[in-house]
């Protein structure tokens, strides 16, 4: 939900400035000396905030000329107090260098009112310079605001463990880590391309994980429009690097031995694999966001289930149990003979699920998305989805983990090719960026 801008905030007076205000001439000299010798070197270090503060000081000095000025400094922007102090420090230091001395109002020949503000995209800092009764002069500077992303969601210490893999502004449908000649690569499936990233700056000791840099981007062309809630699947293959499944489209990469890597796409309604070994496939509705329910081949005697968003398989002693998150909100458990539907208030699951092998508890758990539905009912903030792990000991799901909450909506959840983890893509509530997480389960909690 959108909210009005936050209330105006004013900085606390800065201790060393307060000392200046109440000091006499001797102390004023001393504090000026301290300012130049102690604070100036740090402010001179390259920082966009400090650089821009110095630009503003330069403009103020050009408008005011040298002399003694009172300074009023107000932070009405989203800059935190530490940053505002940095700006003020750099501003005062540069003003001092340019011959503008900060003085008490009764000793000043003019007043400089500095306001740190911001627009939609930029920090905007204004200075109104008043000298005597003359017309006021205005100085303006700006610098781009960084995205207002909050810190990465903390790793949950209990059972569901999440680790941030990658973040970008454009939607991500699926992500995979792949060993390729030359090292590890991150493959990102977007709506119009598969992008491959190489890790740069990683140290062999593992002390530095480095950062991902785009190596190549393979475009995906399609004639038919994609549905709005676009979903896609990235599957690693043994005989070639990967396949891509999108609504109405299947793409195959060239074998990884062939350079350069290419992607061959064709429009087809072929069923999507539900498991890494392709043992069961399901047809995807090319203009919607769900599987139609038609299976190929079927699970035992059952070849049709209700339309569903996601499916997961558990290996039992004598059979495989399948769980389907149906479009109508129910959970269907299919063992090859029966199709058992579970509905009701006790089942507050989301639309996505994935089987993850943990080798603890029952060995394999179901990781399930869950929306903050109660928030909607109580008018609290919505859009904080979470992941929970469940087991189905006797066809009745039992939660075995605490919720790992994300600061946004889970837009994708797919099991990885090895089956011991999953990939979750989250659209951040505050920035709208997409973050891909590797999800795994840990024991002993």
């Amino acid at each position, binding site marked *: 939900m959108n909210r009005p801008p936050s209330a105006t905030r004013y900085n606390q007076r800065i201790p060393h400035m307060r000392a200046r205000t109440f000091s006499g001439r001797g102390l004023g000299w001393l504090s000026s000396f301290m300012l130049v010798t102690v604070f100036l070197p740090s402010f001179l270090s390259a920082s966009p905030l400090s650089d821009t503060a110095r630009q503003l000081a330069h403009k103020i000095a050009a408008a005011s000329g040298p002399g003694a000025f009172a300074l009023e400094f107000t932070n009405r922007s989203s800059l935190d107090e530490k940053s505002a102090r940095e700006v003020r420090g750099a501003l005062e230091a540069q003003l001092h260098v340019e011959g503008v001395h900060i003085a008490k109002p009764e000793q000043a020949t003019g007043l400089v009112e500095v306001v740190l503000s911001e627009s939609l995209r930029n920090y905007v800092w204004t200075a109104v310079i008043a000298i005597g009764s003359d017309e006021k002069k205005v100085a303006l500077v700006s610098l781009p605001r960084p995205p207002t992303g909050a810190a990465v969601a903390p790793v949950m210490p209990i059972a569901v463990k999440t680790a941030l893999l990658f973040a970008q502004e454009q939607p991500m449908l699926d992500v995979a880590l792949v060993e390729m000649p030359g090292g590890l690569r991150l493959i990102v499936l977007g709506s119009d391309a598969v992008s491959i990233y190489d890790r740069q700056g990683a140290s062999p000791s593992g002390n530095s994980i480095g950062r991902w840099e785009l190596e190549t981007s393979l475009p995906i062309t399609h004639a038919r429009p994609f549905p709005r809630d676009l979903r896609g699947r990235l599957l690693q293959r043994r005989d070639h690097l990967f396949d891509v499944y999108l609504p109405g489209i299947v793409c195959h990469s060239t074998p990884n031995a062939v350079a350069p890597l290419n992607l061959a796409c064709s429009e087809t309604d072929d069923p999507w694999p539900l498991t890494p070994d392709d043992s069961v496939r399901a047809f995807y509705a090319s203009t919607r966001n769900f599987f139609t329910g038609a299976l190929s081949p079927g699970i035992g005697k059952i070849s049709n289930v209700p339309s569903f968003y996601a499916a997961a398989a558990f290996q039992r002693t004598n059979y495989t149990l399948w769980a389907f998150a149906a479009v109508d909100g129910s959970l269907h458990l299919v063992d090859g003979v029966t199709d058992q539907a579970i509905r009701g*208030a006790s089942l507050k699951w989301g639309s996505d699920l994935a089987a993850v092998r943990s080798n603890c508890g029952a060995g394999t758990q179901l990781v399930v998305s869950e929306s903050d539905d109660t928030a909607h009912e109580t008018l609290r903030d919505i859009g904080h989805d979470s992941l929970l792990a469940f087991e189905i000991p006797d066809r009745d799901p039992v939660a075995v983990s605490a919720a790992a909450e994300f600061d946004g909506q889970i837009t994708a959840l797919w099991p990885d090719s090895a089956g011991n983890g999953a990939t979750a893509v989250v659209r951040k509530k505050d920035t709208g960026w997409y973050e891909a997480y590797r999800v795994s389960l840990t024991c002993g909690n």
Partner: protein
Amino acid sequence: MRPIAYLLLAAISLLGAVAAETRPHYGGTLRVMLQSAPSALDLPANATPAEYWDLSRTLSLIGNTLVRIDAQGRPQPALAVAWQSDASASHWQFTLRRGVKFHDGSAASPAAIAQILGALHSGWNVRAVADSITIESAPPLPSLLAELALPRNLALKRNANGAPPVGTGPFLVAEWQPSQFLKLAANEESWEGRPFVDAVEIEFGKAQRDQAIALELGKTDVIEEAPQSASGSQPHSTSSVSLPTELLALVFPVNSRANDPRLREALALAINRKPIQSVLLKGAGEPAASILPNWMTGFSAVFSAQANAQEARILLADSHQPAPNLTCELSYDPRDPQAQLIAERIALNAREVGITVQVSLSGAEDIRLVRVVLPSPDPATSLGEAARQLGLPQPAFSATAGGDTLEDLYQTERSLLEAHAVIPLFHLPVATAEGARVRDWSPERRGQWSASRLSLADFWLSDLRSTASRADLPGQAGSR
């Protein structure tokens, strides 16, 4: 499985599905109520703010613009997938998206789009060239992308006989009763993907009070709210308040008898905006002395909105126009529920410094209390549009495609204000409220309903069972 477990499952299954789905559902009809009662699906140049919001929101569901502006104020592809301009911003080229069709099945070809835009802007030379259109203009168009993103530039085909417009957007017109009712159906062929809901039903001409009651009774899903009421006080709805996108201001018509700049400046200094904001606007909006709100420019603090009665009296003493001898007639829009009270409060402030202001809806007006829409996040575009609505001269910016510099924008706004033809009072937001079954949607921060990933076409309904159609409501049966 043990028999008791099957019994338990069977019992649970009878409770009905109350799952917390995270993925959008398809289906259902969204019901919307709006204030204005337009006789045509067209956005008139002299639209009131209420008409502007209602029609621009509605038309944006039917049509698309060449580009759109995202939440960060950056241009993004829509019908155009790429664009470029020359250094002077006089010549622009837009590469159009392939395969897009109008709702009537005809291709949204460069020729068709060029014809629509050319008809909207006689001063532009719009031509179709291969898979692109070019736009040329003698005065440079540095803010063309922001201009093209405005609802008035939606690519809509219109018929001379008053039939509803035909667009390329996510919904097509299924039924239109002028001034009363519009039914939109999902466009299965939408290039952005089919909307999640099957239909949108919009009832026009509903007073805000009636809208609030209907929302509380579950007879509608989305309504407009007064910003001062948007506190989420209703138990089963969520309110959304935009960034300030309207300006409430006093404007002096050309033939105003209050023509001495010092008298006007004294009036500006006499107005105490804080009590008006806290009492009459119930905290909504921001006191303003600038045309553009701070979120657009970042420098509104430079223009002081502080009242200063003492300085006002000094200015009056120097005025060529002795204030006691002049009674200024202040008019307002009677359709604006707050306007009369605000006008009377301004008159009171004016009298306190010695300016006689009479609030009146008849006779020659010297001052007009107006509310104007600031339609674009691009400050240059909004400043130009505000100037047009306020009757001020069009601002002149430097002609570069990279946008106007901060200094240039500041100087331009300042020069508009220094003419003392307008006294900005408040920047006001717009508000909407949606019922509990509307999911994944909140209006974008600028009040529109069509931004990328925030469109009405992107929301979905969590409960498809309890949709009472308009024909089922009391007093509506047989109306269509």
